[in-house]
Every structure is written in structure tokens, then in C-alpha cells.
């Protein structure tokens, strides 16, 4: 029964307007973001810049972070990005005093006055340089760097910075991610060659581009499935077919699971078809450059990276629609999407996937970051899959109760009333 229902659900989906709108939006997303994608050439020596990379050197991290802290301590207000939106934090006396203590312990700077002095000296030293031979320095001042206090271990430094981040409400320059992000150093030719090598050898070209593909698709797949799920959920009620279906023999599990599976398949299909385009580009490039690509990379990434998001969003849509009989899921998912996207803007380059519904990796490079963050990514993806299955189970339960006349949340009397009496 499940198989036959599944086929019919797919057919229904294929006939629905909302589905084709979703497909159009996915095509639009793909063509605007990746339509003109070109495959990276190997870096050549003597290029002007090879981009920046995050330093892992504790000394560099400490210097730039303490520089930021000194700067903001002097200014008496702090910039944070709790969900990616700018937030300005001013501290009360007690917290301000504690930040002062932390600064003293980590940088040996006692009090606001000496902090101000350190800051002035730094910029004075830069301005004092003969800058005629370096045009950039005239417009761009090197941000303040502060030497850590003698004997400060990196472990103790991280502890204190985590505390400062907590005092500031999270998303500050002193949390783990920002500290490391702020310690940027220019990449050398060797760095660039090494990174490109990883793209060719570890990712076999397609892996890197599949991640980039996922990065762009996941943004829309973090919300579009909810529209399909809500429309499907409301369709029975809208076409006054609920009771005809309720009184059938078919179990609630079969009804809901067939719908869920059909939506997942119908949503994944266009994504897989779209992925053929970058795959072909990679293959044509690889043919010329003599590289063997991983033909299945896009399929693997679509299922591993994108499907859990699609599953979670679809399941939430189904669950809330069955629960409330309204389009409330659209608003809830909209809010979740908003928080997830803005919470992820500082992690675009990959490697820091956290528990975001839409893990980002906005580059075909940085295999190293992907490799390092893989365990977290896998945990993240498995979590959303499990959450999705749990939501589906709850939806089945709610549906089975509604079939028996229980759990009519939107107005018990309304649901049970005779409509023409």
C-alpha cells in the first residue's frame, strides 16, 4: 500500500502549482549564484595576492584578540553579533570592572588610562613611519595588536576570553570563532598551492564544488520545503476530503510516511538534476587537466548535506500543519530560517558548522576546514535527520488521533460541529 500511495503522492505533487514554483526558485537560485561558475586554475607564482587564511598560531591569535579587547575597553562599548546582526553592548560597572581585570591578567594593562596609552602609542608608531613608500598604510592602519602578559598560557587565555564573551552575551570578538577569525594572515604561494592540491587530490575537484553547490542550495532548501508540506497538509481540509480519508482502512503511519517520502523525493530530484551542470563543468575541466573526478560527489553531498535540512524542514511543516490546521509552520520556519542564516554569516568559509540547520561552506577550497569540521558536520546532519524522524512520528500520532476525533486543537466545537445546522 505504501508504494502505491507514494506513487500517487508524487503524481499529485507534480501536478501542484506550489511544487513548480519551488522548482523555478531553485533554478533561479542556481543560475544566479552558480550559473557562471568557472573552475579554479592552479595558482601561479608571483600573483599579487593569494587571499587570507586564519592563523592557528596562538601568539598571533592572542595578540590580535587582546588588541581588540584593549580597543573596545577604551571605547567603553563592544560590538557583538549574536545572530549575525550588529549589536552594541555597553556594560554595567561590575561587568566593566571584570573586563578590566581580565585585560590586566591577559595583557598586563591595568586600568583604562594605561589601556588608552597603549592604544595611542600603537597608532602613533604607525603614523610616525615614513609612509611615502607604502600608499596603503596612509589609508589603512594596522589594527591594534597587544602582546600577551608574560607567562600567560594559551589555555588560560582561552578561558578568560570565553568568560569575557559570556559577559558580553555571546557573539563577541572574544568567543572562540571570532578570536580565530580575527587572526588573519596573508596566504603565501605555498599555502595556495597546498590548498589547491587538496582540492584536486582529496576532493578530486568535484568534492569541493559539490560543497559550494550545497552552500548555495541549502539557503533556499532551508525554507522552501515548508511551503510544500503546508500546502499538502492543508489540501485535505481545503478540498473537504478529510473525512473520506479518515475513514479508510489505511493506517496513519502509511498515509503520513507516503506523503513525507514523496515530498522528500520530489524536492531532491530537481536538486540532483541541477547538480549535473557543475558536474559536467568539472568533468570537462578535469578532462583537459588530466584529473580524475569523483563522479558521485554531487550525489553524496546532496544526500549527506542537503537532505537532512530538507527532511527537517519538511517534517516541521507537516507536524505544525497537522497540529494547528493552519499555515503557522510558514511563520515558524521563517523565523528559524532567519536566525539560522544570520547566525551562520560569520561561518561562511566552512569548517565551523556547529548545529546550524544550514551549514555553510562558501568556497570550493578549504578542504582542510571541511576535514577538521567533519565530525561536527556529521553530528549536525545526523541530529537533524533524527529530529525529522521524531517529528514525523509525532505527526503520525497526531494524525491518528485526529482521525478518531481527538486533538482538534483549532476549536473542538468547531471541528465537531455540523456544518449546516
Amino acid at each position: 500500500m505504501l508504494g502505491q500511495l507514494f506513487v500517487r503522492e508524487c503524481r499529485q505533487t507534480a501536478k501542484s502549482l506550489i511544487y513548480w514554483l519551488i522548482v523555478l526558485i531553485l533554478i533561479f537560485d542556481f543560475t544566479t549564484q552558480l550559473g557562471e561558475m568557472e573552475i579554479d586554475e592552479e595558482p601561479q607564482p608571483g600573483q599579487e595576492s593569494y587571499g587570507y587564511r586564519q592563523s592557528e598560531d596562538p601568539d598571533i591569535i592572542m595578540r590580535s584578540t587582546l588588541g581588540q579587547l584593549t580597543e573596545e575597553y577604551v571605547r567603553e562599548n563592544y560590538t557583538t553579533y549574536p545572530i549575525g546582526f550588529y549589536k552594541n553592548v555597553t556594560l554595567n560597572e561590575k561587568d566593566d570592572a571584570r573586563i578590566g581585570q581580565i585585560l590586566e591578567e591577559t595583557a598586563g594593562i591595568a586600568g583604562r588610562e594605561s589601556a588608552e596609552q597603549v592604544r595611542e602609542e600603537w597608532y602613533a608608531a604607525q603614523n610616525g613611519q615614513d609612509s611615502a613608500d607604502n600608499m596603503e598604510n596612509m589609508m589603512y592602519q594596522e589594527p591594534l595588536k597587544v602582546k600577551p602578559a608574560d607567562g600567560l598560557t594559551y589555555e588560560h587565555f582561552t578561558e578568560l576570553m570565553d568568560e569575557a564573551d559570556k559577559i558580553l552575551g555571546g557573539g563577541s570578538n572574544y568567543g572562540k570563532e571570532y578570536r580565530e577569525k580575527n587572526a588573519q594572515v596573508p596566504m603565501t604561494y605555498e599555502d595556495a598551492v597546498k590548498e589547491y592540491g587538496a582540492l584536486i587530490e582529496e576532493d578530486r575537484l568535484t568534492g569541493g564544488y559539490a560543497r559550494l553547490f550545497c552552500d548555495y542550495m541549502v539557503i533556499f532548501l532551508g525554507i522552501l520545503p515548508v511551503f510544500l508540506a503546508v500546502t499538502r497538509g492543508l489540501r485535505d481540509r481545503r478540498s473537504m476530503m478529510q473525512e473520506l480519508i479518515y475513514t479508510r482502512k489505511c493506517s496513519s503511519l502509511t498515509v503520513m510516511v507516503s506523503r513525507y517520502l514523496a515530498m522528500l523525493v520530489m524536492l531532491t530530484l530537481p536538486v540532483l538534476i541541477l547538480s549535473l551542470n557543475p558536474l559536467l563543468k568539472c568533468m570537462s575541466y578535469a578532462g583537459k587537466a588530466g584529473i580524475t573526478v569523483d563522479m558521485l560527489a554531487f550525489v553524496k553531498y546532496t544526500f549527506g548535506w542537503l537532505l537532512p535540512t530538507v527532511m527537517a524542514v519538511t517534517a516541521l511543516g507537516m507536524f505544525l500543519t497537522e497540529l494547528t490546521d493552519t499555515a503557522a509552520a510558514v511563520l515558524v520556519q521563517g523565523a528559524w530560517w532567519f536566525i539560522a542564516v544570520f547566525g551562520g554569516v560569520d561561518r561562511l568559509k566552512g569548517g565551523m558548522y556547529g548545529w546550524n540547520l544550514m551549514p555553510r561552506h562558501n568556497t570550493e577550497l578549504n578542504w582542510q576546514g571541511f576535514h577538521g569540521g567533519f565530525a561536527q558536520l556529521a553530528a549536525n546532519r545526523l541530529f537533524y535527520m533524527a529530529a525529522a524522524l521524531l517529528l514525523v512520528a509525532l505527526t503520525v500520532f497526531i494524525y491518528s488521533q485526529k482521525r478518531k476525533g481527538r486533538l482538534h486543537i483549532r476549536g473542538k466545537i468547531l471541528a465537531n460541529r455540523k456544518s449546516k445546522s
Partner: protein
Amino acid sequence: MERYWQIEKVNLKYHIPLHVLISVLLLLISPFLIGVANLGAQDTAKALEMYVALIGIVLLPPVFLPEQNHDIRDLIYTKYLNGTAIYLVRILGNILLMAVLLGLYIGMLAYHGCEFPAGKYFCGTLTEMLFLGGLGVFFYGLCDNLVIGYMAPIVYYIAAIGGGEKYMKMFYPFSMVRGSYGEKVWLAFGAVILVIGGVWFRCRRKRRFVR
């Protein structure tokens, strides 16, 4: 006039309270998500254009919802006052509600030491709300489907965030963040067309059903 006030009273009492509640909640939780104090003009614009304007999506598209059931629709449309009038009254009422909520929010921002041209930002944000909501009204009317009514403005918003400036040009919603205001005129113009178009589509459908 009294008739129109009656329609709006029913709207306020039965149709819109939940949506107003959601909008108010959205605004109330904003301090936990975004900065609302001591912002400069650009950051204030960001908060208004990228966050507060979203209540336009919550408040405007559901104006057609009470008559979603075709039987109710037929009943309402056979009454003396035609459907267009009902929808326009509701839309104006909801716009007024949005303006009040936005006004209060802008007052709150100013009170917390944000520095920005209040009148200009008020009009700019309200325009964006109308455009977002107008998209919803238009597509709801066109497709007779609330979900599509929500989807249109949400997708437009997402596309704008994902670097849609290149494609949207004068309809780019976050122009005040860049210090540009000319787009708002286009948005206002677009919003009016969208709302009128949406109501027209909605009321045109009734004839098809009566036939």
C-alpha cells in the same frame, strides 16, 4: 462611512488579532537578536529594513483568509457591499496597524539613543513593508493560496539577502542600509500596483465561481 468602520471592527475583533500578536512578539524579541541601542544610521537602517519590515509579511497577506472557504466567499460577495470594498478597508486597516507598530518601534530606537532621520526611515520602512505585504496579497489573489502568498515575499526577501541587488535594481529592499532612498519610490509604486492587482484577481475569481 459607518459601514466601513463596521468592517474594520470585525477585522480587528476576529481576523487580525493573532497576526498582530505575532508581529508584536517579533518586535519584542528583537533586542535579543539584534542591536537596538546606540546604533548609527546605517545599523538602524539594517535593523528596520532587514528585521522590522518582516511584519509586513505577517500582517498584509492574510486579508483574504476569512473568505478562504468558497461558500463563505459566495455568501459575502452576494451582499450589498462588494468584496473589493471589504478588502480595501481591511488592507488600509492593517497598513495603519503596521504604521502604528513601526512608529512605536522607531520611537523605541530613538529613545535608546539610535541616531537616524526618523521620518525618512519611517516612510522607507513602511514602504518596504507594503511591498513585501503587497507581494503576498498579489500572489495570494492570483493563486488563491495563502501559502503562495507567504512564499512570494519570503523568497523575495531571501533573494535580496543573497546578493539580489544586481537583479532587483530599483526594487532592492535594503537600500537605506547603503544610504540610498530612491528605490523606496519604486517600491511604493510597486506596492500600490501589487495590492490593487491582488484584490482585482481575488474579486475577479468570484465571477468564475458564480458561473
